[in-house]
């Protein structure tokens, strides 16, 4: 059953982050990708025992560092200064990626250019001529985390949906996305394709019309 929240506008950035944050299970180990997913960290409920991993080599990452707490040796995957929480640990890159690729993270949250109905992810490269590619840990997270949450606007600037039948951007991983959180709808992904869990600012019928894909309710 889809929950339609049509009598309101689409989710703003913080509202979207709160929806994602609310879906992260208590006690989970979580990696928040660079960019939009970082905002989720500001909305994780206290006391739920959620531990943040940063792939440059730390579990138990705390909030962004400010003022005197800024330490150039303590940064997140976006190379911004962060803090440590009690119970944190540091490890080298091979250990950090073993943790990611070995299936030990409960959830990762990633931005995306496109997600296909089958859960394929495209988030590392526009593929445009002259664009300099950069992949970082995106492919490792895509295949490694037990649940891959994507967080993105539902529509590109030109209005085309970013949830697609088949990705046209270069892929990051195959059939790896579990859920897609967007400003206009939350989707779950399984072997049968996309199901709409929530809509925001439009009805399911309107969503189907604008996305143009089979969307189960």
């Amino acid at each position, binding site marked *: 059953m889809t929950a339609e929240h049509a009598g309101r506008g689409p989710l703003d950035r913080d509202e979207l982050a709160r929806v994602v944050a609310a879906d992260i299970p208590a006690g989970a180990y979580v990696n928040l990708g660079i960019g939009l997913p970082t905002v989720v960290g500001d909305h994780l409920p206290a006391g739920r025992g959620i531990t943040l991993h940063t792939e440059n080599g730390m579990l138990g990452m705390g909030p962004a560092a400010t003022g005197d707490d800024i330490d150039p040796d303590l940064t997140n995957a976006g190379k911004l200064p962060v803090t440590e929480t*009690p119970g944190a640990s540091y490890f080298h890159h091979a250990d950090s990626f073993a*943790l990611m690729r070995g299936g030990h993270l409960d959830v990762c949250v990633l931005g995306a250019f496109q997600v296909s109905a089958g859960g394929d992810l495209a988030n590392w490269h526009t593929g445009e001529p002259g664009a300099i590619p950069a992949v970082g840990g995106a492919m490792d997270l895509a295949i490694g985390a037990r649940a891959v949450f994507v967080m993105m606007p539902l529509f590109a600037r030109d209005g085309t949906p970013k949830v697609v039948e088949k990705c046209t951007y270069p892929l990051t991983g195959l059939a790896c996305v579990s859920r897609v959180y967007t400003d206009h709808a939350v989707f779950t992904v399984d072997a049968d394709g996309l199901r709409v869990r929530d809509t925001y600012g439009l009805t399911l019928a309107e969503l189907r019309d604008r996305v143009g894909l089979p969307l189960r309710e």
Partner: protein
Amino acid sequence: MSVAVTDADAAVADVPDGATVLIGGFGSAGQPVELIDALRRHGARDLTVVSNNAGNGDTGLAALLAAGLVRRILCSYPRQSDSYVFDRLYRDGRIELELVPQGNLAERMRAAGAGIGAFYCPTGVGTPLAEGKEQRTIDGRDYLLEFPIRGDVALIKAYRADGVGNLVYRKTARNFGPVMATAATTTVAQVTEVVPAGGLDPEVVVTPGIYVDRVVVV
């Protein structure tokens, strides 16, 4: 996440018959004797055990074997001066042995924990332990293809834990513990002490708490 701190019997109460159990230790150093004793009392049968040795004397791993609960063991060095329990079971055909070179035992468990599907390793090329394994020449050197060893549960011994399950070890008792913790679905660590989260320096944590499900203070 706060790690579950429990007693030894509760910590192994859900190990099912037929489970694969990774058991830490090199000889008696790092052997989680109290957890093994609890597993023996629990009585799960048809176990596959992965451990460097096959027990010494009549206690710990040797007692688990003597109780007839272990169907198969993967180890590198079963034969020791006081491994008479294993020796008897093996000669009587009551336990299967898969002999694994020590480095492969460690690296195959690391592979399981790290998401590696298989790896090419030079150890054992041209020896009887190469039988049945794929061989490949890479850059002029011969390698054998080795596959991961995964556990349903790992029983390990560490020195101290903190409240989120981070572990530090003591001297050469560290041995297989950190690797086994990554390779099992459920990891149980016996420790001498649990300190609050923040009580271990983040720089010196050897096993991050993400790999530790239950802690038992002995």
